[in-house]
């Protein structure tokens, strides 16, 4: 046990975490050179493409230290985005130490600080590392002062490295061995192991990643999950190399995997404690915060016959993504679909991309919504995250919407623009303080709904990429909530309804109307597109009538050719959604709904 080190790397996005992990893996020879690829721990395409880690990942490395002993280093890679902080927490709970990675050029960023606090919460030993020292723009002096002032750590302890070219990696490995503590625990105590991740494998069932605190876990044993009370017989345990390495047992302090014939990830609550059914522990390991959905959207298949496939794909996806929730939903315009809950917009995008890529589905997503709290006149109160269930306004006493505390860090020259952005997004209690010379943190209490729509992208572009954003949930606060309906020739398109603050309703409705007007093909009659709150029209556009479509010739006696053309047209119309005798192509829904995330 004294030769085990469990650690993670915490860093702001893009500070080089995955590259550093790659380098450590290579240095310890855990993977043959020919099998190596960049971001080796990021197994999903999306992770590689975007350079972000979405799922936690663990790997066991064998390191022969300068003192001649071989150490088992368990590197637990954690996601680097606010949406996935629940995964971060679980990972942190499995570690004794953390490498706090700081970019030598960018310095301490919002997430560096947020993750530091998290790490401190779990009493991890911290090892500051300054990465990218090979960059011409590296400013180690400044980073040192930020480490001291913003993080409260001693910059003298910091290891300087370049994960890119390998400088300082040996020093770092020695520091991991000597500065991070070995795990504690007793092999004689009843088994307690925390599940920090789970993966579904179609051949092996669910593979649990766990960290043993006390006791020993071995194949053949019957384990009990202390939260759910479910019992399973263990088929296999082992170490998490890049390929799985079966082992006889996992002792205290170990990190490894467990196979126990579990069918789906939903049978497992992440953070649950495994214990020996024959000799159960009395107390489970400290709990964790349940991941809560904060963003909701309905997902529909492009063609109704893909509904079953979508349903199956979601079932499979949740095997691996316990934070995703879904239930059946249906729309008059788009047919059957699912109302899904996400941790945030990035999570939503990730799920959407995985469904599209891994399952080849063409999808439509309704406008993302937060969960509102609606107090009714009859004294009851309900939660509404789906515009379809928004009650008649006359029955509503008042509404509340979730607020977050946003923290934005950036060079001071952007203060004006960012303060304005917060104001525009209904931010209150907006204030700023200087973190260091030239660096400012703005905090603002913002409605979460305002952050859902292109807030992050706007921030990034107005700060030329220097701004960082992090948030925590605050509370629900009173709001003047309205339901915007989009009408096509007087009939509402339910999939396009959305909830919004009254002050934002007109602009949002107009945006939808204009998008639709651009993408709905001209009909033989004029098409009116309107945005409405109840019976009041707040925005409108028109699509002029199509004045000519008839072809000049009937191709002589070749009636077949012309009929086939019309049959094709008819087929095309069939695939459109007809609302108020207006045929709306899928592309119109895409143009409208996609713009919410992209624009």
């Amino acid at each position, binding site marked *: 046990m004294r030769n085990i080190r469990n650690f993670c790397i915490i860093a702001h996005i893009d500070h080089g975490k995955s590259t550093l992990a790659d380098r450590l893996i290579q240095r310890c020879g855990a993977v043959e050179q020919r099998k190596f690829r960049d971001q080796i721990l990021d197994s999903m395409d999306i992770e590689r493409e975007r350079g972000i880690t979405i799922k936690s990942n663990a790997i066991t490395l064998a390191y022969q230290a300068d003192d001649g002993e071989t150490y088992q280093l368990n590197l637990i890679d954690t996601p680097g985005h606010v949406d996935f902080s629940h995964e971060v927490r679980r990972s942190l709970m499995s570690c004794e130490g953390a490498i706090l990675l700081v970019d030598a050029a960018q310095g301490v960023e919002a997430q560096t600080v947020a993750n530091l606090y998290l790490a401190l919460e779990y009493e991890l030993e911290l090892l500051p590392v300054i990465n990218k020292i090979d960059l011409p723009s590296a400013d180690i002096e400044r980073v040192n002062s930020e480490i001291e002032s913003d993080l409260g750590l001693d910059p003298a302890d910091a290891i300087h490295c370049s994960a890119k070219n390998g400088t300082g990696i040996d020093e770092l490995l020695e520091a991991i061995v000597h500065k991070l503590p070995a795990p504690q625990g007793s092999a004689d105590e009843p088994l307690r192991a925390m599940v920090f991740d789970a993966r579904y494998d179609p051949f092996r069932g669910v593979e649990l990643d766990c960290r043993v605190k006390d006791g020993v876990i071995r194949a053949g044993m019957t384990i009990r999950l202390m939260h759910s009370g479910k019992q399973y017989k263990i088929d296999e345990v082992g170490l998490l190399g890049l390929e799985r390495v079966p082992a006889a047992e996992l002792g205290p302090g170990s990190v490894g995997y467990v196979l126990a014939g579990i069918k789906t990830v939903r049978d497992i609550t992440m953070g649950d404690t495994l214990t020996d059914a024959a000799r159960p522990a009395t107390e489970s390991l400290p709990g964790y915060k349940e991941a809560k959905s904060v963003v909701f959207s309905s997902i529909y298949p492009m063609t109704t016959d893909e509904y079953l496939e979508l349903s199956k794909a979601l079932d499979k996806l949740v095997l691996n993504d316990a934070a995703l929730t879904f239930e059946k939903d249906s729309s008059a315009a788009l047919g059957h679909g699912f109302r899904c809950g996400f941790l945030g917009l990035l999570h939503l995008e990730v799920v959407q991309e995985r469904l599209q890529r891994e399952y080849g589905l063409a999808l439509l997503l309704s406008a993302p919504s937060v969960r509102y709290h609606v107090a009714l006149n009859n004294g009851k109160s309900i939660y509404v995250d789906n515009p379809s269930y928004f009650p008649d306004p006359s029955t509503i006493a008042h509404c509340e919407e979730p607020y977050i505390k946003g923290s934005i860090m950036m060079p001071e020259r952007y203060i004006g623009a960012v303060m304005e952005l917060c104001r525009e997004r209904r931010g209150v209690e907006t204030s700023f303080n200087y973190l260091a010379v030239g660096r400012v943190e703005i905090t603002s209490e913002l409605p979460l709904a305002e952050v859902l729509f292109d807030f992050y992208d706007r921030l990034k572009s107005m700060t030329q990429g220097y701004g960082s954003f992090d948030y925590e949930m605050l509370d629900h606060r009173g709001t003047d909530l309205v339901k915007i309906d989009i009408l096509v020739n007087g009939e509402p398109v339910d999939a396009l309804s959305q909830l919004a603050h009254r002050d934002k309703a007109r602009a949002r409705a107009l945006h939808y109307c204009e998008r639709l007007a651009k993408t709905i093909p001209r009909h033989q009659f004029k098409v009116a597109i309107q945005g409405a709150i109840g019976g009041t029209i707040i925005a409108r556009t028109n699509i002029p009538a199509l004045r000519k479509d008839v072809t000049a010739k009937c191709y002589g*006696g070749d*009636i077949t050719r012309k009929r086939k*053309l019309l049959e094709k*047209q008819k087929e095309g119309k069939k695939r459109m959604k007809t609302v108020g*005798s207006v045929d709306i192509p899928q592309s119109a829904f895409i143009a409208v709904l996609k713009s919410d995330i992209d624009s």
Partner: protein
Amino acid sequence: MNDGPLAGLYLHVPFCAQICPYCDFAVRTGDRDRRRRFVDHLLAEIDLYAGCSACFDTVYFGGGTPSSLEIEDLARILDRLRSRLSLADRTRVYLEANPEDVSADSAAAWRRIGIDTLSLGVQSLVPAGLSFLGRSHGVSDARDAVAAAREAGFHTVSIDLIYGLPGHSTAAWRRELDSAIELEPQHISCYQLTIHSGTRFGLLEQRGELTQLSVDNQASLFELTHRHLNAAGLQGYEVSQFAASPEHRSAHNLKYWNHTPYLGLGPAAHSFRDDRRWWNVRRTDPWQDRIKQGRSAVEGTETLDTGAMVLEALMTGLRTYAGLDLGRLRSRFGVDLIDSNLALVERLESEGLVALEHDHLVPTLAGLAVADGMASSFDISAPATAQAI
């Protein structure tokens, strides 16, 4: 073909002196020998249908450029038709002709062998239009051809015009229509330029070197064409067809539009009878090869179900001034189109696109312009039949 309404006969002559940049019909170039050999094969194909029970009252030489055939070749074909097939006493014979091929002599010769209607491929009456359309004749050739044809005493002289060329203004097109009216043809076909892929124009469009008129401009030209010609006494009866009086309408084309049987001979020609359509191989050489081997040149066939028949009726009916005969749909197919499309018809009526008159669904002028979209909007559910039991 069995007894029934008098059928139409179409003969496709694929030869052209050159291929026009807008044309996507089955055409090719060919010298005199080639054309003669083609006629030999066409005669052989007529023989294949010898004794067919249908009686024809229209014969249409289309193409291509059938006027490029020698007079004796045309005569041979007509003689063979008369000897092998049953032609009605007052069979109307149509010939498509290029202005270059029309002279007092050729016109007189055509009259002599029994051609009644000469359809002249004038295409444009301004030099810029002719050169854009890649036509080799000049404006004066066209005028002379019309004059010669009228002189020869055809029952109907018709001229074809193409409008909606890139940049075509309403003023320029109105002047051109006036020139056409001055020629006093008994029939005019005005086709709006359609750019087909696989043609020279299609290629230019793909390369971005040719842009079609905007839909709104097309619509304006379309309305102008109909209003102007109707006012001048050339009454429209279909999207692109205008006649000085009902007797000058194309009795042959009407058969295409109302499910009357017709037989097509020659490459790419299409035929229809009862609920069946069939068509010959498209290219000339394979067509000849088949005929030479004494085989049928039919390449494909389809049997139409009620839905397809009704869609065709809608598509062709809504293209005509007379409109869609609803009673005929009920009696022939057992389909009550209005019943199953009440909301749509009401909307189309209120938008001023159709009117219900004498059990016909009649398009207005604005409706004619969007006939395709209207036709594809109808719900054509086959009626419940006893078959289900």
